[in-house]
């Protein structure tokens, strides 16, 4: 099935880990809703298992993780692994937050489809999702 024809796309915005800074997650969720997407924001402190379960149950097209506490590598690796184990490895994962430039490539090597550091334009994020 060609995913590009299924509109609006469903997006899961999730905050894994213990970090409570949710401004970015909420702002991006609002921007994506304004752009016509259907957005599910699951709130603070979701475990990797919870995020994967929600993604599968809600049949989302993209998972966007928001991480600002420096543990993006560890959490993303665990999430991608869990997704693959659950047979949902085809769902693209994007990561946003405080991501040092040196980690962008490392995240992509882990299997992340897009990295959006603080300050990324909404347009860039929207274009990314439309082009998946």
């Amino acid at each position, binding site marked *: 099935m060609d995913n590009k024809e299924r509109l609006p796309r469903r997006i899961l915005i999730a905050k894994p880990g213990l970090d409570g800074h949710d*401004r970015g997650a909420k702002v991006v969720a609002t921007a994506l809703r304004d752009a016509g997407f259907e957005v599910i*924001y699951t709130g603070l402190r979701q475990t990797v298992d919870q995020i994967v379960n929600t993604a599968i149950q809600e049949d989302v097209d993209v998972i966007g993780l928001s991480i600002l506490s420096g543990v993006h590598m560890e959490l993303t690796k665990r999430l991608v692994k869990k997704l693959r184990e659950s047979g949902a490895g085809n769902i693209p994962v994007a990561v946003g937050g405080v991501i040092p430039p040196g980690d962008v490539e490392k995240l992509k090597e882990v299997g992340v489809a897009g990295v959006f550091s603080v*300050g990324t334009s909404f347009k860039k994020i929207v274009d990314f999702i439309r082009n998946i």
Partner: protein
Amino acid sequence: MKEKITKKKDRWREKCLSQAPYRSAKAELSGVDVDVDILYTPDSIASIDYPQDIGFPGEPPFTRGIYPSMYRGRLWTMRQYSGFATAEESNKRFKFLMDQGNMGLSVAFDLPTQMGFDSDNPEIEEEVGRVGVAISTLKDMEILFEGIPLHKVTTSFTINGIASIILAMYLAVAEKQGVPFTEVGGTIQNDILKEYVARGTYIFPPRPSLRLIVDTIEYCMKEAPRFYPISISGGHFRSGGASLIQEVAFMMLNGITYIEAVLARGIDIDEFAPRLSYLFVTQLNLFEEIAKFRASRRLWAHIIKERFKAKDPRSMMFRVYAAGCGDVLTHAEPENNIVRLTMMTLAGILGGVQSFFTPAYDEAYEIPTEKSALLGLRTQQILAYETGITNTVDPLGGSYYIEWLTSKIENEVRKYMEELEKKGRMVELIERGFIQNEMARIAYEKTKKKLSGEKVVVGLNKFQSAQAREKLQIYQPDREAISKQIARVKRVKAERDNEKVHYCLKRLEGAAKGTENLMPYLLETVKAYGSVEEIVNTLRGVFGEFREPVM
């Protein structure tokens, strides 16, 4: 007089100003921008009554400052926030900063500690020691303050969900050092209401959390009178995207909620209000920030006096700690942040703060290095000792613009508070997610303005260079040190008198079900080396957990 000036100003506008082209300007006070006049004159502030509205420093309504001699008497406390990895490493950083002239300690905790998890919990392993120091048992706290006599320093703890436990541990360390509680000074942030809206480190629901807060206020009032048991915070809303008006209004509404909760216990306002402290951040609009502090002092003095019938002027003092706001720092061209932080520090000092934290310019990325943390402190020292801005109290008082802005902010905050109070009490508004949405609305608008370039950020959306950001030195926690921390927690748990810990936790549980003050029970438990996680689990069993409303 007023008419005469207004008439002359109108003539000036018509004959002189009209010949000169000029741009429009807006104040950034709230979501709805306010027009800023091109010139302020005596008639702009004609309705202000000097003795009543501005007055003198050290006397209500404290517009010009809460102390009579302000920085001529004593400088503000330069309180640099730090804490990372383990107690040993943080202890070393504390001592380094003290040697360099830092005047008070300020502890950052890692997220597991803030959320009530011990370092040896495998679920949260990757977050141990990451954004602050890991504290699981009294043993860690003893090491954190080793060689630092607690009657000689004051310590501020950025801790909320488990503030009462940290207070108990700090007092227990004092006891071990032979320092009486009456000589222990410091602050716990302990402001849970803002956590539900902006910072996120809540554990229990609002109502039992409020009880814990009142317990700490009552306990400090009686046992540790030099300790400030709460720092009621507006700054975190602002850092989370709120407007300046929201920063002040939400803080004051939360403050009112805490005060009402203490009063409900039959304690007189003048017994505890002198021990309340407040927290703001500063951003880059210099004059708006300065006016914010002046307006807040005036408005708070009125609220405490009129609404709560306080008689002691000390109850009416808005004693404020402030920090430069990390939200306006950029990753792009990070050295530009040094200039931004200088301006934000200047705003705090000209605003008359009691203590200030200048973050490190690389904080937008990670935990500051020793060098960048020192630069933050040096910024304050240069302003304090080289610029002469401390030579007179409230040097901008009397400026037509500053006084106009001060009154404007006071009025806007008052109006917004009235509007919110009509919608419900703060706890209910937070439980319903109303305040969260109010803030998210402004945060979204502000982000859009920044992305579109309407809000200029030099080096980010205007005048960008190709300067590499890879140059930044990023802090990485030492995994070996973290392993040692985890091993220590395990060892403490194996070596302590476990029967005693269980007994203490049982007693704590019983007390939590009743209405007694929990502080003595917490003190007893931490002294037996009961851990943060064990205490939190015990309390969670009685209090339950907060679930955030869906956005």
